[in-house]
């Protein structure tokens, strides 16, 4: 069964701006799905419509087979949303924020208290349960929103840029948490500007640009399409001109840093051998661009 099924979804705002021009999307149950796109592409509008925060102009959305328009309550019960911006009451305590959300989903108090404790412990926020939320750090506030989204045990968790603006340590711990939640059977839809995040976590991907889906495939299939890699080489000795080697494109960044474009299938050993023959010694090498980032730029610029 599909966790999410969108058919010909369109949205034109009252100011005349068309955010979605008719998108079709299916996300399988249990998937970890990335929805990517540049700013203003229509990601947040799509997520807003799925989570009932934005009215659609036309088209249909169903969540685990429940039509969002006809079986609204059942469809909504399946969704947990972590929005882009902090949107809880900053004057409430952490515990009350999560507990109230459980109440909005009709959860009896005893179960709500148990789930609240479980989610706050999972997000390592139990010690902060009586803290007024405005006193939390940015990372903690993000984790409160995740705990709040998980409290009713949703089958579909939508994460709209959940790691935006958090430090790398918290981001990595949030990745672990997301993987853990997905392994427990929750379908996850993730939007993010950190493409390495999508690449390492998600199994399937859709790229949206200018209100239409420009790419929809498995992550591994998509990455297999990459036809070149870009590397930066740190040299032991300065050089004045980029070397000429058949099959590789070089660019001199500075006299001790060289950038090389390596076509898919070309051997790096051969590259090092050729450089060595020209008395160029490489101290270290790093991949300049994230692989998905490269594809993403190609697709949205087409």
């Amino acid at each position, binding site marked *: 069964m599909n966790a999410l099924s969108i058919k010909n979804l369109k949205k034109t*705002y009252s100011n005349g701006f068309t955010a979605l021009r008719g998108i079709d999307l299916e996300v399988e149950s249990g998937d970890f799905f990335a929805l990517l796109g540049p700013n203003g592409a229509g990601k947040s509008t799509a997520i807003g419509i799925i989570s009932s*925060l934005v009215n659609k102009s036309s088209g249909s959305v169903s969540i685990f087979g429940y039509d969002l328009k006809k079986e*609204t309550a059942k469809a909504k019960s399946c969704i947990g949303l972590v929005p882009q*911006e902090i*949107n*809880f009451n900053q004057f409430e305590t952490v515990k009350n924020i999560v507990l109230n959300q459980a109440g*909005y989903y009709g*959860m009896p108090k005893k179960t709500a208290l148990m789930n609240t404790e479980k989610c706050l412990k999972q997000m390592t926020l139990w010690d902060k349960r009586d803290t007024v939320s405005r006193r939390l750090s940015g990372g903690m506030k993000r984790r409160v929103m995740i705990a*709040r989204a998980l409290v009713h045990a949703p089958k579909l968790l939508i994460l709209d840029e959940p790691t935006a603006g958090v430090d790398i340590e918290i981001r990595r711990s949030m990745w672990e948490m997301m993987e853990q939640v997905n392994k427990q059977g929750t379908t996850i839809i993730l939007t993010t500007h950190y493409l390495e995040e999508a690449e390492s976590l998600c199994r399937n991907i859709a790229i949206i640009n200018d209100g239409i889906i420009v790419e929809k495939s498995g992550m591994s299939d998509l990455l297999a399409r990459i036809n070149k890699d870009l590397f930066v080489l740190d040299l032991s000795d300065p050089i004045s001109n980029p070397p000429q080697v058949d099959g590789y494109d070089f660019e001199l960044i500075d006299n001790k840093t060289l950038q090389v474009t390596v076509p898919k299938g070309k051997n790096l050993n051969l590259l090092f051998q050729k450089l060595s023959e020209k008395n160029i010694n490489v101290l270290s090498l790093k991949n300049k661009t994230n692989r998905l980032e490269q594809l993403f730029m190609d697709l949205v610029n087409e």
Partner: protein
Amino acid sequence: MNNFIAFHTIIRKEIHRFLRIWPQTLLPPAITTALYFLIFGKLIGDRIGSISGVTYMEYIVPGIILMSVISHSYANVVSSFYSTKFQRNIEELLVAPIPNWVILFGYVGGGIARGLLVGMVVTGISLFFADITVNNLAVTISVYFLTATLFALAGFINAVFADSFDDISIIPNFVLTPLSYLGGIFYSVTMLPEVWQKISLANPILYMINAFRYGLIGVSDVNINVAFMITGGFILFLTLLSLLLLHKGIGIKN
């Protein structure tokens, strides 16, 4: 059952909110109305004498109680729901499987609770200044409750359309307060020139204040049945309008 739990959650949250900030919500009306009773009722009222067979202090008590109910039931919903929009935690409600009527009744219930609680505080203070014996308990309680409901609904609609904090103070300052003062809190409309008496009858608050005054002290300038019909009609209209606004998502979605 689910809807009841959601309703209970919203109303509990709303009551907790205004009780938590009681120095802003419960204390000011106690002080303000005590001053009204002292200055208008005691100091000036003693020189005015009686109106409709009761002392001036007794005459103004019902109006002052109801004015507190009106302003606080309105203020609670307009400020709370607008803050919910402003902080975007309205999204917590919109994503959840809560019917619109539960959201509406939850917030309106919070407004009614504050209006009635403030009304009780003011009534308690009035007992230090006037000896009030209830003329008709059923009329008193029903007008008390219906007025709080009506203005909680009006506050909700104001909050839906508000785009800034200025927008939530315009109606209370420039509409509700003048209409309350001109609704016969401090005087009987029969004391006005005939043309102003007719104009006053277009003020719906006049009917509520007089119905409440009838319930408390048995004195009214208007027909009580008409007062109930007007109040009930407004409640019905504002309820339907609020549900329509929620259904369309006006001022809330997008």
